[in-house]
């Protein structure tokens, strides 16, 4: 059963249309990746789902509710989480405060959710008093995901989680995402590192010039000669 249904989505910034007639869906607990060349509009898809772009046409249905007219705050209340590609932590706040902000909409900080984030990323528990701004890139990325997990969302949108990470940390990051999926949270991810992403995910979309060009399960896309040659750099 799908929890996210995007149908004929047109969206962009101001008058500039970036996405044309994009269709995609994510099932409950599914791991879906969007790949494609630079400038294809991958990040714009994420932003549009979360209410950060100018919605022009088409529908976005999340768990039975139309959310295309929602602002980001309303989407947080709907149980959707989004991790931006960069600047995704609050540098002057401590690690713990960053996580607390993730649960801002609740009256109390959910101790069990906090504990499960700490169990998932033990480094965050060790450094909970440290300022987020003084953490390494990999640790910040973990903190950003931890923040998004504080409300136990049914779907988490990850925008290029491996961007800017040292090569030896990229695998660890993908392992972390695998564990998020294993625990039952659906993931919709945009990735530059297409081979790695497609080999790990359940299903993938190839986005070109703001349009869905191909969609299939990850291994099939990865095995397709033409897609490899044109979009995945051989």
């Amino acid at each position, binding site marked *: 059963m799908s929890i996210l249904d995007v149908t004929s989505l047109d969206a962009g910034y101001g008058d500039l249309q970036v996405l044309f007639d994009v269709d995609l869906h994510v099932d409950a607990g599914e791991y879906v990746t969007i790949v494609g060349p630079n400038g294809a509009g991958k990040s714009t898809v994420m932003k549009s789902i979360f209410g*950060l772009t100018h919605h022009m046409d088409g529908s976005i249905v999340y768990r039975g509710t139309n959310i295309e007219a929602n602002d*980001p*705050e309303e989407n947080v209340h709907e149980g959707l989480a989004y991790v931006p590609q960069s600047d995704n932590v*609050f*540098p*002057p706040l401590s690690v713990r405060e960053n996580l607390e*902000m*993730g649960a*801002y909409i609740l009256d109390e900080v959910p101790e069990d959710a906090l504990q499960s984030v700490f169990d998932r990323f033990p480094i965050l528990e060790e450094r909970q008093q440290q300022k987020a701004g003084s953490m390494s890139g990999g640790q910040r990325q973990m903190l950003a995901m931890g923040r998004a997990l504080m*409300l136990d969302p049914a779907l988490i949108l990850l925008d290029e989680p491996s961007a800017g990470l040292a090569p030896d940390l990229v695998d660890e990051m993908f392992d972390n995402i695998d564990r998020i999926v294993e625990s039952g949270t659906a993931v919709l991810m945009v990735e530059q590192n297409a081979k790695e992403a497609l080999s790990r995910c359940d299903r993938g979309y190839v986005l070109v010039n703001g349009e869905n060009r191909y969609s299939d399960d990850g291994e099939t896309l990865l095995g397709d000669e033409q897609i490899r040659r044109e979009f995945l750099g051989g």
Partner: protein
Amino acid sequence: MIRQLTTGELTVALIASYLWRGLAYGLVIGLAGVGLSLTYDLLDFANFAHGDYITISAFVGWGVAYLVAGFGQFSPGSLLFLGVGGTVYPQDVGISVTAAPVAILVGLIIAALVGALLAVALDSAVYKSMRGAGNITLLIASVGVAFVLRYAAVFLFTQQTFGLTADSWSYEIGLPGGAVRITSASLLLIIVALVMMIAIHLLLTRTKLGKAMRAMGANQQLARVTGIPSEKIVRRTWLIGGALAGIAGFMIALLQGTINYQIGWTLLLLVFAGVIMGGIGSVYGAIVGGILVGLITRVSLIWIPASFTEATGFAVMILILLTRPAGIFGGDAT
């Protein structure tokens, strides 16, 4: 300075009394700066009307203080308008920190309330619709708001400078070469300012609102996607900043013993100097910068004529910015 000290031109007592007055003055500048810095941090907006929030709330606060102190003896209208046109004089009302503590306290609270409400009202009436229109638009709009408020004060209270307080208790500490006079006004100011600063620190580090304010200041976009309700946080920030402006206004009038329609505007220039010196957007920078400006402008009186004190404050600000362009606490917001 050492030569002056040894020859007796300059006494320890004189330096100490300049330091004491500088501290009191600096704390009030810092208190006013906190509000300015908070709204700058959240909205990237240097509010030039902040000084006139100070003026208006000081006038209303003192009007109410007069009303409480002189109720029954004088007409309420004359009291509320501080005896404009020479109907009531401070000596008649007998108002001072020690003679009428309740009146002073009520006035202080009213000044805080007026500052808070004024800040929120002007935000929703003027600034809110301009968010996203750019800092320059907001800045120019705030200059307009400043003039409207200033001349509203002139309309109500004229351009007269009012004496506010009667003589009150003070304590003299004997030091070589004289004594330091600790007035009840400066003592009250220092206590109130310190309490407010500790309260602000606790707010920012211990409460959900404070943490959300810091989060918004650090990254607006991320705050939005995290579900932090921006407009609500902005409104509360104005409320807090306005209340602090009101308290600063009431206190600066108490410290000087006089008030006129330019009290806040004159203070604002020094507040800006303090805030920029400390690193604009940083609350702790605003406090430290404010205290520094207060100390510098008062202590410089030893060598420099009184009419140059503000220039001295700004000269030191420029020197600090030459070595630390982002200010003392610059770069690390709140």
